[in-house]
């Protein structure tokens, strides 16, 4: 990937259904087994429609888009500024999207707007901006 191949407005997305298996693996990985993620009755008692995914599980799906698609395999994350607006309920199908907002060519940086929303209702779960760079172009 080079900056020349990227343009403001370039966009990629993917749809993902959040499963109990994903939540279980992620909970083990980060050692977060809070009952709101695993105990249906507890989660409902907290006012949710079911167990909810870890917020960082949801936001981590954005990382896959960044590294695999846009900007692509040569890029690394420098900064993320995310807001978690609503919880993702286990079983929800979500739409993850990244779009290039600005290219700062002098330092090899790409600013992207990112979002995760419900595929069917457009309810926004996560939104924000991420700055990536392409090593080798940076270090002005």
């Amino acid at each position, binding site marked *: 990937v080079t900056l020349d191949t990227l343009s403001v407005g370039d966009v990629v997305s993917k749809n993902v259904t959040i499963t109990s298996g994903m939540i279980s693996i992620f909970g083990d990985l980060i050692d977060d087994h809070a009952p709101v993620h695993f105990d249906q009755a507890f989660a409902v008692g907290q006012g949710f429609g079911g167990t909810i995914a870890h917020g960082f599980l949801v936001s981590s799906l954005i990382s896959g888009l960044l590294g695999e698609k846009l900007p692509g395999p040569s890029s690394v994350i*420098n*900064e993320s500024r995310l807001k978690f607006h609503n919880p993702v309920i286990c079983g929800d199908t979500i739409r993850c999207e990244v779009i290039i907002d600005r290219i700062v*060519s*002098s*330092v090899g*940086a790409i600013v992207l707007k990112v979002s995760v929303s419900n595929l069917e209702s457009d309810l926004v779960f996560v939104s924000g901006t991420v*700055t990536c*760079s392409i090593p080798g172009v*940076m270090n*002005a």
Partner: protein
Amino acid sequence: MESKMSNEVLRALEPIFRDVFEEPDLVVTRALNANDVEKWDSLNHIALIVEIEMLTNISFTIDQLLDMSDVGDFADMLVAEGFLGDA
């Protein structure tokens, strides 16, 4: 006159410098440069330039950045590009 405008630019840039380098009391002067700020490394340099471009809506070239030896040079360049610190 240009110096006065540059000082206005310095004041406009100061919140960005303080945020990027996590130094809430940092005073941005014309003489400030990377040697004066402990956290002014390559990654924070990227963050700094990104934030300044976002503030000013001015895109810099690599040559412009290489020509700068301190923040004063940067402020003068921004003034020359039409940014007066009131974005």
